[in-house]
């Protein structure tokens, strides 16, 4: 399942970027046509998506198969 999270992360970023390209328009009147909301959303979710990729990598390596039960294990 780790691979699923690793793939999902760039899919999310791709979806956001392509949606921004499709919707941002100087002639548009709706708020979704303005660049600022997209800059905010992409700027915030990109590092989180990278975190999801790292999570997926750890999952794939079996790091979550056994969770630590004391500080000595951390």
């Amino acid at each position, binding site marked *: *399942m780790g691979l699923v*999270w690793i793939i999902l992360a760039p899919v999310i970023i791709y979806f956001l970027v392509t949606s921004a390209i499709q*919707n941002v328009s100087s002639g548009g009147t*709706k*708020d*979704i046509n303005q660049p*600022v*909301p997209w800059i*905010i*959303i992409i700027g*915030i979710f990109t590092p*989180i998506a990278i*975190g*999801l990729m*790292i*999570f997926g990598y*750890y*999952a794939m390596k079996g*790091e*979550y198969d056994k*969770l*630590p*039960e*004391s*500080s*000595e*294990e*951390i």
Partner: protein
Amino acid sequence: MSTTPVKGIGKIIFSSSLGTLIEWYDFYIFGMLAKTISIQFFPEGNNTAALLNTLAIFAAGFLVRPFGALVFGRLGDLIGRKYTFLLTLVLMGASTFLIGLVPGYKTIGIAAPLLVLLLRLIQGLALGGEYGGAATYVAEHAPKDKRGYYTSWIQTTATLGLFVALGIIMLVKANMSDAAFNAEWGGWRYPFWISILLVGVSIYIRLKMSESPLYAALKKEGKTSTNPLKESFGHKANFKMVLLALFGAVMGQGVIWYTGQFYAQSFLENTIKLDFIQNREILLWAIGLATPFFLFFGWLSDKVGRKWIMLTGLMLGVIFYRPIFGTFLKTANAKEWRSQGIKMAHPVVNSTMIKIDTVTNADPFMSVTIQYSKTDWELIDGRKFSVTSADTVPVNQFKSVIKVDTKPVYSNVVLSTALKWKFISLVWVMIIFVTMAYGPIAAFLVELFPTKIRYTSMSLPYHIGNGVFGGLVPFIATLLATTFTTDPLVGLWYPIGVAALCFIIGALYLSNKIDKDVND
């Protein structure tokens, strides 16, 4: 390490919770008054843009919470919980009070929203440092088999802060006219000013608190962290737990919290067009009746484990959000009430002229006057609504080519008593989902991390999950709803998608074991 006696723990919980509650109150009055604030701090013209800008400033406060978590989390692990607590409270109180002093856009122009944004960011930083400290502080005093129950008292403070914010706003509004409330220096500022009194009380109480015994012991033994940030996020063994906490628990809990309470209120106000007072009354009742369940699910999590209670709350939201919000839409459709020809309370309908606009272009023969009139309707069972319609009055004998939208606009919807209780029960159900996801989560987060870096490590995922994912719910949902106008429920796909993803990750990777010992 012996835990605090029961009598002592009561004082600990009270002093931690009160300050946290006040900080939540400070944070939420901004969101509760979003519509009023949008009128004051942004230029007139486009109400949707102003509302979105206000929600963006609201969201900005959430987005900096993770940074506050890092800054104050680090402080709390370096110098102790008590003094960090005091600092966050002072910052929050001061910035809230100052928001109430910023003049409107009409007076100081663009400086108004910029000042409000700056103060909102300070609020977000302060809140980022508050919660992790409060939950850690209580958990480090609690006996191991009651950690879920005792920390659930802290979990009530966010909802109770919302409750107090709603209550104070309603109290102020009920005692003055709409015009007096919405004026530039009107009643809407009072909840901000009241905050400084509440914060003063809380500072006094917190000054009397002692340091966390676990932290004090650690400091005495010289075992505190010299660089909690590096230890939290630079070591894989701990960083992987931060990621798990975020993606497997807090991300979903954040969207459930904000959808069931904040977005519900925003949806009822802006989509259903529910009357201001009734909207908040519904929230108050639902919150009041649901709040004890935070304690119940915290207690239950001590018996059966935290994981499946939290994840069940997420899944129930995924399944039931669309049906519940769909019921709101269907039940409070004023247009349908009118077309059903339901009996009127009285035969006379009040119709008043509220505004006249003149639309002109270069050719004076092509101008047109638009006349807006508002009609108040009251049905025999107590339901009410207003209809605003526009009629054009040609200035001259030529037919104008200027097109004007004459579609009637429905507003000020008031439900009958029976319908009001139906709405209260539906919002109550959504808040029950919140209590399931949120009640046990403080204990869950505390148990994931060792004492010396606990404040830093638990604060960051908590504030990303709630601040970023949850805080953006009203903004993203409104953005979707104003774009894809054919489906008024389209905004729900964001929280539903995030909660569903979190459920899957949590189900696969979280442990249901309760850590008996946080004294390490």
